[in-house]
C-alpha cells in the first residue's frame, strides 16, 4: 500500500471504531465492544509503523476542500512528514495500550460502549490535529479533542454524589480551553491576513525561501496568539487549573488525554510553527514562553509536594513537566522538547495507568494516606510504578534522565540562572514522586480491613500495558542519546525529525564539551540519589505519613491548597462576571430598557387619543381587512393571469 492509503486507513480506523460502537455498541457484548475499539487502535499503530518504515518524504494528501471562495480556500488536507508521523506513532501506540488497559479497568461500567466510542473519537480528532497540513485542520482537531475531553471528564455525570462535580470539572476544562482557543483563532486570522494561507508548507516557503519579512510586531502577535492557544491545551499559567480538576474522569482518560497526548498538542503546535517562532519578531514570544514555562514548572511542582490524591499529584506533575517543555521551546530546543514529549508519554501514561491499577485494587480510593504497603499486594503494579517514578525523577540511564538532561544542557548554555531554577523544579519533582511512591507502596496498610481484604492485582489486560510502558520508560532514552555517551549514532531522533520536517533550524544541539556534559549529568545523578535516600529515610525508615489536612500550616498548607489559584480566579473572574450578569438583567434589561420602552409606548398612546376616534383599535380587525385585501388582489390577478 502507498503512504496515502496507509495514512487514510490510520485516520479512518478509529473513526470506524467509534461509528460501530456508537451505533451498535449498546446491543453488543462488552468483550466485543472493547475488542473492536482496541483492535482498530493496534491496526492503526501497525500501519503507522509501516509508514514510519517506508522511506517517506514530505507528502500532502488532499481530501477535499471544506470551503472554496473566490480568494480563499480551506483544504481538508493531510501532511505526512517526520513530525506528524512521530506524533501519530505516540498517539496510536500509547493509545492502543490505554485502550487495552481500559478493557479491564472499565469492565464494571455501565457506559462501556460509550466510553470506547469517545476514546476512539478522541484518537480520530487527535490524529486530525497532528496530521493536518494547515492550521485550519489543526484547529478542527484541536476543538475536536476538546469536546472529547469534555465528554470523558464528565463521563460519570449521573453519579449520585459526584455527578454534578464531574460535570463542573468537565465544563471548567472546556471553558478554559475555549479561552485559549480564542487566542489561537485570532492567531489564525492574523496569519491569514498576513500571508493569505494557512498551509504549513506554503507558510514555511514564504518565510524561508521567498524571504517575506513581515513586521516584527506582526510576528510577535502571531506567535503570541499561538502560544495563548497552547497555554490552554497544554495547561500553562494562567490557564492550567483545569487539568488537575480533569482528574474527575476515569483514570485511563487521565493517562491518554490529560498526560500523554492531548496536553502535548500545545507543544506540537509550537514545534509545527517553528518557522514562525524563529523569526526576529517572535523572540519576545520565545522569552515569554520560557518564563511562563519556568513559572508553571515551579508552581505546579510546589503544589504537587503536598497533594494527597494519587491522581492529583500526577496531574500537577504533568503540568510541571509541560512547563519544562515550554522552557525548552522558549530556548528553541524543538527536538529536545519532542524527545521529552515522547519519554513523558511513556512514563506518565505508565504512572497514570499504575495509579489506575492502584485505585482499582483499592476499590476506588484515591487518598494515599489510606494506602501503604501496597507493594506486597500488587507486585506488578508496584514494580512498574517504581520504574515510572524513577524515570520521571531522572534516575540514571532511564528515559527521563536523558530527555530531561538534554533540556537542562540547553538551559546551561542559555543562562545559568534558568538552569538553577530548573534544577529546583527537577529536585521538587523527584521529592514529590518519591514521597508518592513510598507512602503508597511502603510502610503498613492504613486502610480499613474490608479494603485490605479486597486488595488484588489487576487482570492481564491491565498489567500487560503496564509492562510494555515500563519497558519503554526504561529504554526510551536510547532514541536520542546525547553525544557524550557514544561517538556516533547519537541524537537519532533529532536527526529523524529534522530530515523532512519543514523549519528554519529545528535542531539546536547543545555545544557542551564532554567534560561539561559529564559534570551536568553527574550533578543531576547525585541530586536524584540524595533525594531518593532522603525521602526513603523520611517516609520509610521514620515511617512518617502525610499529615491530615488540619495539621498543615505555612508552606505545606499553601501547597495543599494549590496556592489558592481557584479561589483567586473565582474572586477575580467568575464572581464579577456572575455579578455583572445578574445586574445587567435586573437593571439594564428589566429596568432601563423596559421602562423606557413602556414610557415611549405611553407617549404614543397619548398622542394616539386624537386619531383614535376614527380607528376601531381592534388589532385583529385591521389584520383581517388587510388579509382580505391581499387575498382578493391575489385571486384577481390569478384569474386574470
Amino acid at each position, binding site marked *: 500500500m502507498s503512504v496515502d492509503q496507509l495514512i487514510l486507513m490510520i485516520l479512518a480506523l478509529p473513526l470506524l471504531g467509534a461509528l460501530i460502537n456508537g451505533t451498535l455498541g449498546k446491543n453488543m457484548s462488552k468483550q466485543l465492544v472493547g475488542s473492536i475499539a482496541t483492535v482498530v487502535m493496534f491496526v492503526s499503530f501497525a500501519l503507522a509503523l509501516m509508514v514510519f518504515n517506508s522511506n517517506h518524504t514530505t507528502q500532502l494528501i488532499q481530501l477535499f476542500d*471544506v470551503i472554496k471562495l473566490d480568494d*480563499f480556500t480551506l483544504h481538508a488536507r493531510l501532511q505526512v512528514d517526520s513530525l506528524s508521523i512521530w506524533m501519530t506513532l505516540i498517539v496510536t501506540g500509547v493509545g492502543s495500550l490505554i485502550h487495552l488497559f481500559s478493557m479491564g479497568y472499565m469492565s464494571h461500567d455501565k457506559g462501556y460502549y460509550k466510553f470506547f466510542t469517545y476514546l476512539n473519537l478522541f484518537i480520530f480528532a487527535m490524529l486530525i490535529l497532528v496530521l493536518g497540513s494547515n492550521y485550519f485542520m489543526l484547529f478542527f482537531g484541536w476543538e475536536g479533542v476538546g469536546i472529547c475531553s469534555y465528554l470523558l471528564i464528565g463521563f460519570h*455525570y449521573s453519579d449520585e454524589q459526584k*455527578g454534578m462535580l464531574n460535570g463542573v470539572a468537565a465544563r471548567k476544562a472546556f471553558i478554559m480551553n475555549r479561552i485559549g482557543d480564542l487566542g489561537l483563532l485570532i492567531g489564525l486570522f492574523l496569519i491569514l*491576513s498576513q500571508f493569505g494561507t494557512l498551509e504549513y508548507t506554503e507558510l514555511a516557503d514564504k518565510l524561508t525561501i521567498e524571504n517575506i519579512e513581515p513586521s516584527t510586531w506582526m510576528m510577535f502577535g502571531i506567535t503570541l496568539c499561538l502560544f495563548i492557544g497552547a497555554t490552554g491545551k497544554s495547561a500553562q499559567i494562567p490557564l492550567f487549573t483545569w487539568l488537575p480538576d480533569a482528574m474527575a474522569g476515569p483514570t485511563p482518560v487521565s493517562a491518554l488525554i490529560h498526560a500523554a497526548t492531548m496536553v502535548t498538542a500545545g507543544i506540537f503546535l509550537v514545534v509545527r510553527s517553528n518557522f514562525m517562532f524563529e523569526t526576529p519578531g517572535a523572540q519576545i514570544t520565545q522569552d515569554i514562553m520560557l518564563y511562563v514555562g519556568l513559572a508553571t514548572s515551579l508552581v505546579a511542582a510546589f503544589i504537587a509536594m503536598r497533594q494527597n490524591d494519587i491522581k492529583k499529584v500526577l496531574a500537577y506533575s504533568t503540568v510541571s513537566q509541560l512547563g519544562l517543555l515550554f522552557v525548552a521551546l522558549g530556548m528553541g530546543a524543538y527536538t529536545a522538547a519532542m524527545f521529552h514529549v515522547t519519554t513523558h508519554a511513556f512514563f506518565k501514561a505508565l504512572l497514570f495507568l499504575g495509579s489506575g491499577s492502584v485505585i482499582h485494587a483499592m476499590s476506588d480510593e484515591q487518598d494515599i494516606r489510606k494506602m501503604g504497603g501496597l507493594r506486597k499486594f500488587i507486585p506488578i503494579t508496584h514494580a512498574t510504578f517504581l520504574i515510572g517514578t524513577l524515570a520521571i525523577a531522572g534516575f540514571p540511564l532511564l528515559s527521563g534522565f536523558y530527555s530531561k538532561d538534554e533540556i537542562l544542557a540547553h538551559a546551561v548554555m542559555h543562562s545559568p540562572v534558568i538552569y538553577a531554577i530548573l534544577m529546583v523544579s527537577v529536585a521538587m519533582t523527584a521529592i514529590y514522586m518519591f514521597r508518592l511512591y513510598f507512602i503508597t507502596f511502603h510502610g503498613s496498610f492504613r486502610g480499613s480491613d474490608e479494603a485490605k481484604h479486597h486488595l488484588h492485582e489487576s487482570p492481564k489486560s491491565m498489567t500487560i500495558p503496564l509492562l510494555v510502558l515500563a519497558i519503554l520508560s526504561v529504554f526510551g532514552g536510547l532514541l536520542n542519546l546525547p553525544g557524550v555517551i557514544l561517538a556516533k549514532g547519537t541524537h537519532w531522533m533529532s536527526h529523524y525529525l529534522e530530515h523532512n520536517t519543514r523549519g528554519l533550524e529545528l535542531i539546536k544541539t547543545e555545544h557542551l564539551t564532554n567534560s561539561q556534559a559529564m559534570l551536568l549529568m553527574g550533578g543531576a545523578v547525585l541530586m536524584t540519589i540524595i533525594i531518593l535516600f532522603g525521602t526513603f529515610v523520611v517516609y520509610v525508615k521514620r515511617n512518617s505519613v502525610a499529615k491530615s489536612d488540619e495539621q498543615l500550616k505555612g508552606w505545606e498548607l499553601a501547597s495543599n491548597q494549590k496556592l489558592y489559584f481557584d479561589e483567586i480566579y473565582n474572586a477575580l473572574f467568575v464572581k464579577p462576571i*456572575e455579578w455583572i*450578569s445578574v445586574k445587567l438583567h435586573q437593571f439594564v434589561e428589566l429596568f432601563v*430598557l423596559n421602562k423606557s420602552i413602556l414610557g415611549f409606548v405611553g407617549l404614543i398612546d397619548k398622542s394616539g387619543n386624537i386619531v383614535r376616534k376614527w380607528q376601531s383599535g381592534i388589532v385583529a380587525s385591521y389584520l383581517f381587512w*388587510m388579509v382580505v385585501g391581499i387575498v382578493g388582489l391575489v385571486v384577481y*390577478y390569478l384569474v386574470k393571469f
Partner: protein
Amino acid sequence: MEIYIIPLLFALIAAIAPKNLVKHVGLVGALSSLVVTLTQVVSFSPAETVTLFDPNFITSFGLTFKMGYDGMGLFMVLLTNVMIPIILLSNLNRSIANEKSFNSMVMLMQFGLVGVFTAMDGIMFYVFWELTLIPIFLIVLWYGAPERKNILIKFFIYTFVGSLGMLLSLMALGTYAKDFSHESLVAIQLVPKTAFWIMGGFFLAFAIKIPLFPFHTWQPTTYTVAPMAGTMLLSGLMLKMALFGMIRWMIPLAPEAMADFKCIVITLGLIGILYAAIIAIKQSDIKRLFAFASISHVGLIAAGIMLFDKETLSAVFIQIANHSLVAVGLFLAAGILEKRLGTRTLSEMGGVAKLAPKFGFWFAVIAFASVSVPFTSGFIGEFLLLKGLYGYNWMVGLAAGTTLVFGAVYTLRAYQLSMYGAPKMESFKDLTWNELLAFFLITVFILIIGVYPQVVIDFVGPSLDKLFLSMQASNTLIP
C-alpha cells in the same frame, strides 16, 4: 405557484378537517410543500433567477406583484419548508397538534414566509412580512402561557412600530423609483442623507424582528410565554425574514447609507453578542436562557451581514441555517423538559439524563452544535463570520470571539443543571418517536452542513454575485 397554493389550500383544509385528522393534514401539507420545493431545487441552477409570478401589470402606485427566487431566495424557501415539517413533527404528541386553528395558522405562516422569501416587489415583501404576524400572534394568544396578555401587547406594538418604519421607507423610495419591483428599487441611487433615513426605516423593522440590542426586550418574554411551536417559529424562521431582509432589501436599496450604518449596526450587534451572552449565564428559566442565547447568536450574524462581502455573506447563510436548526432543537429540548416536569426553572431539574438517556444524548448533540464543535454547521459558520469581523477591525473580531467562551458557559450550564447529577424527580418519560425523529433530522442537517459547508456556498454564491452586480449598475443620482 404551487409553493403558495399548497400552504393556503391546506390552511383551509385544516380549518374544516375532522379533528382526529387535523394533525395529519398539517403534516401532509407541510411535506407536500417540501416535495414541491425539492423539485424546484433539483431543476434549479444557482446562477438563474426564476420568476414565479409576474402579471406584467403595474398598479397606479407602482405595485408590480413580481414574485420569484434566485439562489438565496430558494435557499430560504427550502429552509422554511424543511423546518416547518420538523416543527409540526416535534409537536405531534402534544394536544396543540390536534387543534384545527393551530395547523391552519402554521400553514398560513408557511405561506407568509415563502412569500417574504420570494417577493421581488417591495410592497409584496411588506405585505407578506405583515401577514406572518397574524399566525404567530394568534398562536401565542391561543396557546401561550397564562401570563401572555401584556407580553403580547408589547410584542405587537414593537413589531408594529418596526413595520411602520419599513413602510415609510418603502413609500419614500416609491417616490423616486418608477415602480416597486426589486430591480427598480435597487437601480435608484440616493444621496447619503436620504439613504440614511431609508435604511433607518428598514433597520427599525429588521432590528426589532431579529432582535438586535436594544430593540430586543419583547423577545425573552415572548419566547418564554409562547407555546413551544410558537417559539420555534419565531426563532427558527421568523427572525430569518429580517436577516434575509437586510441582505435582499435594506442594504441593496440604500447602500449609500452603509458608510454611516455599518459601524452602528456592527456595534449594536457586538453589544448584543456580549450583553445577551453575559445575561444568559445566570438565567434560571431554561427558555429565557435560550432566548438570550439566541440574541447573542443573531447579533453575530447581523454584524456579519453589514460587512456585505461575498465571503462573509456565504458564512451568514450557513449561520442562518445553523441557527434555525439549533434554535429549534434547543427549544424542543426546553419544551420537552417543560412539558414533562411542569417547570422551566433549572434549579428544579437535574439528573434527567439518567432517567431518559435518549433525551440526554440528543439534547447533548444539539447543545454541542450550539457551541459550534467540529462537524457541526456552526463550526465553519462561526469561523468565517469571526474571520470577516476580524478583518473589519481586530478588536471587533476579538470581542465577538468571546462568544466562543460565553456560549460554552451558558449552554453547558443549562445542559448540566438539567441533565447531570442524581435525578430530582421520580420518573421522566424518554423521547417519543416523533421527538426522536425531529432531533435526528435536525442533527442530520447540522452534520451535512458541518462536514460539507460548500453546498451552501455553491447554492447562494452566484445570486450574491448578481446582487452585487445589480447594485454596481445603479447610477442615477436622486436627492
